[in-house]
């Protein structure tokens, strides 16, 4: 190929740029080169990427790491005495991809381009080497880590590798160190879309070693026990010609177009056009069929630079960081050593929610769980449902026979709350009515030890009021799960003015064991997620009541790329619950929470939602709803609706922060991502409101300082 990517002067200039960088905090992954004597074949050079940290800090790739890799490759590939060259990682990992901390700190487009080019310059040497090149995928290989391997002539993968992925589009990038070009050429466009788009956009799904092999991303699958030994001997066999690797390339344009179109449909369904990265990645996959490598590198450089200098990526990196750090240690949490052990759990109620809670507590805590209901038959049915859930898991192979026996024996039902006597944690999930909940707690308190945590799963009632009048109100806490409990990771842990640190620490420890991400919230009506969602819904129902067509109103937020439209969400939650929460909020905060007569009518008509569904499941507004709704005569345009909703969100979130519902905007963002699935490219929500200018327009200030979740000035 006569088309060269960068000439030597350009590469020298790149290296000079890297060398001239000041302190960036890059954890350098060194490239160790070591000669290996392959008996009967000759000297093989094995490169090991090693950041000199333990397995909890996998190797990452930044400009200095790449420059060292480049220089080592130049030196080693110039040798005349070697028969092959391989790359592998320190124990348990090849590399976890680009150093995201550095990417998020890039100030100028030229720096973004420099990082993109440095990767290409280094990796390209694996193609141009005169000897065969190999990658031994020994463990975690993400993004740029996997791309090193893609540039090699051959790849082995360990059966023990837990996670391989190209997560770039999930984060707001493209696999831009050759991945978007090389993957479709190696395994075909259909599988490339699966790896680059579908898996990444599906909550960053990773694949294991055997799948890497099945997809054709590696040429041979070897056991973990002696992976490196066998990889080197396999390489020796390839070098000696004893083993040959046959590859097929897909070059039918129709197959290619169909795969890309399918990918586009998947992306549309998830981000609705609102995030640029997956579309840029699809463009790169589409172009890969005919592009030269140099053309592809240049286009990838531009895509990376554009995305790195884009607001969506900055918001995504902020969001990703929140889910990795703040989600694991709730802001404002007391010292965890204060937590009391939880050895038995009581669940008051035996309805659907109570059953979900009991299932989760048994499974994750592994302690006895007692479900109580006034009605013996209901209690029994609850227990039966929990056991059926476990039996189902066993049938799917996700629970061993021993574990099935163990968990099934841990759940029991009762009508007598005296059975709670030795519980250390009791959670109620009874009817959402203050007097009922107060009665429940009063009764439970008669039986349980005085330091037993009393938790409520209320979504809209005052936890403080619930605790008042009880002996030891300091052990009452809100434990607000999101439906479906087993799936959504968020848990709003509600602190009342009475709640003491030991109770809070215990609640947070339980949350962690339940594998939920806890956010500490103050006892304020509807807490965080529901308050934000209902404020959004309130504005939406208001514009519909005023006369805006339902479809126009519901689609107004499409440019944000939310996982579903507000009225689809209404259907998921159920109009009755939505109305109930709206009424509670209205009672607490007044008319900025609109109680829509049309919503009331919908609930009165016992409809499951606004939309009917056609034979394809697509929503439409049917005659019944048209007849039911009383519509005003002052419609708004789509833009007007969006502006009103954005204004409402900014206003509400500012008020929540001023009221101290949570500690910081980060907690709101975390709640919206983990509890409502709001996307990374919005950074949850406050980065979006800041960059769209909404927060300053409405509240006179930003939520986050410039550059924290967006581009620098």
């Amino acid at each position, binding site marked *: 190929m006569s088309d060269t990517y960068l000439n030597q002067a350009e590469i020298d200039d790149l290296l000079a740029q890297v060398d001239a960088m000041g302190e960036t905090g890059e954890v350098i992954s060194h490239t*160790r080169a*070591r000669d*290996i*004597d392959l008996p009967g074949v000759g000297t093989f050079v094995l490169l090991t990427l090693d950041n000199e940290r333990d397995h909890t800090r996998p190797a990452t790739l930044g400009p200095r790491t790449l420059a060292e890799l480049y220089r080592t490759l130049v030196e080693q590939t110039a040798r005349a005495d070697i028969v092959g060259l391989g790359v592998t990682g320190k124990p348990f990992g090849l590399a976890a991809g680009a150093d995201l901390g550095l990417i998020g700190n890039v100030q100028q487009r030229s720096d973004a381009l420099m990082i993109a080019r440095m990767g290409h310059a280094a990796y390209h040497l694996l193609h141009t080497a005169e000897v065969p090149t190999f990658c031994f995928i020994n463990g975690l290989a993400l993004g740029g880590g996997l791309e090193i391997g893609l540039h090699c002539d051959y790849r082995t993968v360990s059966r023990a590798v837990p996670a391989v992925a190209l997560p770039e589009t999930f984060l707001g990038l493209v696999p831009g160190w050759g991945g978007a070009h090389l993957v479709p050429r190696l395994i075909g466009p259909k599988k490339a879309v699966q790896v680059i788009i579908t898996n990444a956009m599906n909550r960053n799904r990773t694949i294991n070693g055997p799948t890497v092999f099945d997809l054709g991303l590696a040429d041979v699958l070897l056991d973990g026990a002696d992976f490196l*030994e066998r990889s*080197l001997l396999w390489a020796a066999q390839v070098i000696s010609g004893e083993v040959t690797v046959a590859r097929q390339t897909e070059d039918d344009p129709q197959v290619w177009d169909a795969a890309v179109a399918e990918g586009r449909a998947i992306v549309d369904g998830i981000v609705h056009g609102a995030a640029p990265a997956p579309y840029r990645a699809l463009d790169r996959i589409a172009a890969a069929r005919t592009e030269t490598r140099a053309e592809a590198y240049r286009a990838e450089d531009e895509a990376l630079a554009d995305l790195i200098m884009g607001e969506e990526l900055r918001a995504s990196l902020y969001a990703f960081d929140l889910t990795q750090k703040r989600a694991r240690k709730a802001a404002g949490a007391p010292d965890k050593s204060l937590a009391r052990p939880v050895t038995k759990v009581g669940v008051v109620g035996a309805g659907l929610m109570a059953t979900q809670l009991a299932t989760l507590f048994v499974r994750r805590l592994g302690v006895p769980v007692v479900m109580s209901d006034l009605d013996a038959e209901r209690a029994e049915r609850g227990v039966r449902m929990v056991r059926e859930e476990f039996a189902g898991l066993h049938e799917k192979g996700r629970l061993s026979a021993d574990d099935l026996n163990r968990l099934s024996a841990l759940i029991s039902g009762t009508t007598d709350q005296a059975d709670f006597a030795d519980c250390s944690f009791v959670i109620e999930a009874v009817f959402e009515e203050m007097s009922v909940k107060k009665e429940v707690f009063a009764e439970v308190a008669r039986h349980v030890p005085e330091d037993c945590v009393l938790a409520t799963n209320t979504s809209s009632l005052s936890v403080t009021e619930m605790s008042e009048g009880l002996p030891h109100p300091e052990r009452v806490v809100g434990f607000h799960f999101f439906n479906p409990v087993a799936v959504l990771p968020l848990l709003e842990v509600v602190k009342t003015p009475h709640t003491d640190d030991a109770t809070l620490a215990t609640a947070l420890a339980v949350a962690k064991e339940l594998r939920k991400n806890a956010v500490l919230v103050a006892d304020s009506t509807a807490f965080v997620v529901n308050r934000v969602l209902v404020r959004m819904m309130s504005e939406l129902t208001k514009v519909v009541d005023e006369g805006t067509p339902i479809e126009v109103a519901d689609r107004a937020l499409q440019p944000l790329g939310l996982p579903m439209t507000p009225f689809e969400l209404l259907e998921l939650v159920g109009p009755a619950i939505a109305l109930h929460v709206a009424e509670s909020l209205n009672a607490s905060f007044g008319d900025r929470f609109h109680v829509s007569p049309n919503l009331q009518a919908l609930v009165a008509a016992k409809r499951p939602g606004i939309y009917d569904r056609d034979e394809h499941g697509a929503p439409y507004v049917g005659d019944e709803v048209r007849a039911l709704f009383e519509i005003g005569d002052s419609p708004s345009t789509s833009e007007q609706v969006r502006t009103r909703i954005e204004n409402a969100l900014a206003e509400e979130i500012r008020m929540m922060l001023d009221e101290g519902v949570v500690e910081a905007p980060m907690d709101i963002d975390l709640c919206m991502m983990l509890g409502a699935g709001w996307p990374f490219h919005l950074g949850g929500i406050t980065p979006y409101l800041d960059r769209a200018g909404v927060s300053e327009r409405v509240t006179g200030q930003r939520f986050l300082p410039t550059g924290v979740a967006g581009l620098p000035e």
Partner: protein
Amino acid sequence: MPELREAVFVDGVRTPFGKAGSLYAETRADDMVVDCLRELLRRHPELPPERVDEVAIAATTQTGDQGLTIGRTTAILAGLPQSVPGYAIDRMCAGAMTAVTTTASGIAFGAYDIALAGGVEHMTHHPMGSGADINPRFIAEKLVDPTALVMGSTAENLHDRFPSITKDRADAYAVLSQQRVADAYAAGIIQESLVPVALRSVEQGWGLATTDEPPRPGTTVEGLAQLRTPFRPHGRVTAGNAAGLNDGATACLLAEAATAAELGLPVAMKMVGYAFAGVAPEVMGVGPVPATEKALARAGLSIDDIGAIEINEAFAVQVLAFLEHFGIADDDPKVNPYGGAIALGHPLASSGVRLMIHLARTFRERPEVRYGLTTMCIGLGMGGTVIWENPNWNGAQQ
């Protein structure tokens, strides 16, 4: 009582041996054993792994990466079925030898059909005696001479007992061992039993061990004469006429003869008998003499019936004491024809199987030999000897 059955040695492999503190410094001992076990299974696809009845792995120090019942841990790590049991075994230098005799006894008794036996010593991670809490009565009650716990000193003691074994003779023997290893390497003999081991090093990156590190080809008597005698001023034992401190692992596949035939496993050696014997700990190097006498007597054989000998070269003096006792010349080609531990190294509990690997090779090369033995001295005053019969022996037809 079950009827006695015949135990055979099918195959043996080992890691390249390394110098302590060098090649394997950042590589785990158990991983080295795993490489050996997997290599045996790979070389013998005719053996269904679930047919293995026991995994016996020796280590002198059974802590750290040699701890937690290393025969069982390495069986699991090697990917053997969970139904295959394993245990750890210790008889200091004769660990792997004892793993072989013990599992072979189980085979003879009818408790096993197939066993994997071997040993490991990572002397970088586990210097000899590390972590041991030696009972003060040994010294207080003079149960052993104070020099008994320092192996080099026991070798000096042996020179005292056999004044005819001079330093010059010991050095000449050491040079012969180096030369024989170099020749065996040149002939490709040593390499055939080696399994490559991935080498971990933070500084150098991953490597691969494919050859033994300790040998010093070209060693001369003149060169050896210059070495220090660390155990006594003006002594005789030097780093040059003794085995070093080493890291390494070995394993072999043993089978009951009829099972080997059923599965099509090749037979390299047939076990005839064995014996272990104790001697004064301060002259532990003489242990092979009574052990061999005992084993020969029990087998109804004499030393004249033995056509090949593999004796562990912990120290040259200890080999020479054995040869002198049996009237064998220092350079007799039937003794350690491919060299020994002075050149190759002696990772304590692993060496017994290394001797068997060499003897099996001799049996293949020399069908005129009917019987051979593997023997070694053992710390704290013991010797061990195993007598083997050559399945290739062609004397019956003559």
